[in-house]
C-alpha cells in the first residue's frame, strides 16, 4: 500500500471529488462538501480495503489524508 493508492480509492469513492485533486496534505475537514456521511464512506472504505477499523476517536484526530494514511499504517 502507498498513499497514492489510498488517494485514488478516495477519489473513486467520493463523487464530489474530481480525480487528481486530492493530495496527502489535503485537509479533509476543510473541504466544503465534507459531512458526517463522508466520514462513514471513508470508514467503510478503509475497513473493506485495508481491514482497519477507524474509531470515532481516531476520526476526531484526523485532519489530512496523510493523517489517515498514517493511522492505517499504524493499525495494519
Amino acid at each position: 500500500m502507498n498513499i497514492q493508492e489510498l488517494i485514488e480509492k478516495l477519489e473513486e469513492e467520493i463523487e464530489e471529488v474530481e480525480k487528481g485533486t486530492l493530495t496527502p496534505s489535503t485537509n479533509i475537514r476543510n473541504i466544503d462538501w465534507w459531512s458526517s456521511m463522508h466520514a462513514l464512506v471513508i470508514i467503510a472504505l478503509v475497513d473493506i480495503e485495508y481491514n482497519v477499523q477507524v474509531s470515532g476517536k481516531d476520526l476526531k484526530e484526523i485532519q489530512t489524508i496523510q493523517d489517515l494514511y498514517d493511522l492505517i499504517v499504524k493499525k495494519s
Partner: protein
Amino acid sequence: MGFIDVEGIQIKGVSTVVPKQVVYNKNYELLTLSEREMLIKTTGIKQRRVANKSTTTSDLAIEAANHLFDKVDWIRTEIDLLVFVTQSRDYYLPSTAVISQHKLGLSTSCIAFDIGLGCSGYVYGLSIIASMLKSGNLKKAILLAGDVSTISCNYNDKSAYPLFGDAGSATFIEKTNKKNKWSFDLNSDGSGEDAIKITDGGTRNLPSEDSFILKQFEGGIQRNGFNLALNGIDIFNFSVTTVPKSIKNFLTIKETDFDSIDYFVMHQANLIMNETIRKKLKLEPEKVPYSLAEYGNTSSASIPLTMALVESLKTNTVKLLLSGFGVGLSWGNALLENDAIPHLLINDYSHD
C-alpha cells in the same frame, strides 16, 4: 456461546403493517440539497413510513396478525404462545403481549410476554418461540415485532431523524413433523449501551422537567432526554466488525457454506453499513434483499418486512440466513430451513 438448534419448526406466514404517511428524506430541511442527496445515497433511505401520534406498535402488529388470520387457516383459540418484541410498548405496564392476546381474541391459556429488544429482536423472538414450541406441549405461536421509533426521534437531530421508519409485523410459526433445521447464534455486549440510547423515562432517569429540555450537541444537533440518541460511528464499527465475524464463526460451526444459503436477510440499518457487511462476507448482491429505500430502519420489523419483498420465498423451499444487530449492543444470527411461505404480506395501516 449462545447456540440453539431445533428441528421441525416452520414459518407459515409473515405480515407487516406500515403507517400510510410517507416522509421523504429529499424534503428534510435541516440539510442542504447536496447533503440530502449524499444522505440518501449513503444510507439508501429515500422515504419512510411515519405513524400518527395516536398509533402504537401494537396497533400495527395486531392488524398485521389479523391480515394473516384472514389468509392462514388457523383458529385463534389454538394459539399457544404470543411473543411481542418491541422497545415502544403501549404502557410501562402491563405487558403489550398480554393486551394483544385479548385484542387478537386468543385463548386465556395462551402464553404471552414481551421482549425488550430492537434491531436484534426478530432473531431473538424466533429463537425463543422455536425453543418453547420444541420443549413444551405447544404447537402454534405468533411473533409480533416492531417499533414506532419516529416518535422518539427529534426533527433537529440529523444523525437519527432521517433513518427510522415505523412498522409492526406478525409471523405465524408452527411445530411440524418435518426434519428441517433451525439454528441460532445469540450475543450481547452491554458495554456498548450508550451507542443507541433513550436516557430518560425509565427507572434510572425518571421522567422530570429536565427530560423535556432541548439540549445542544455537536453539529447543531438538538434533542431532549426522551429522544433517541445514536452514535453513528460506534454503531458502524461494531456492525461491520463484530457482525461479519460472528456470522463466519456461526457458519463454520454449523458446517454451512455461504453457497448453500439462498438469501441473507439482514436488519436494515443503512445501506453503507449493510453493504460493508455484505462485501466482507463476499455475498452476491442478488442474495441480499433490501427494504431500506422505501421504509428506512424499522427496528425489529425490518427482517420480516424485507422477507416479504422476496417473491421466491412464496414458492420455494429455502435456506435463509438472518442477522439482526444494533441497540444493546445485541446481535443474533439464524439459519432457517423453511418450506415455501405463500403468505408474505405488506399492508398500509387501515386507521390512518
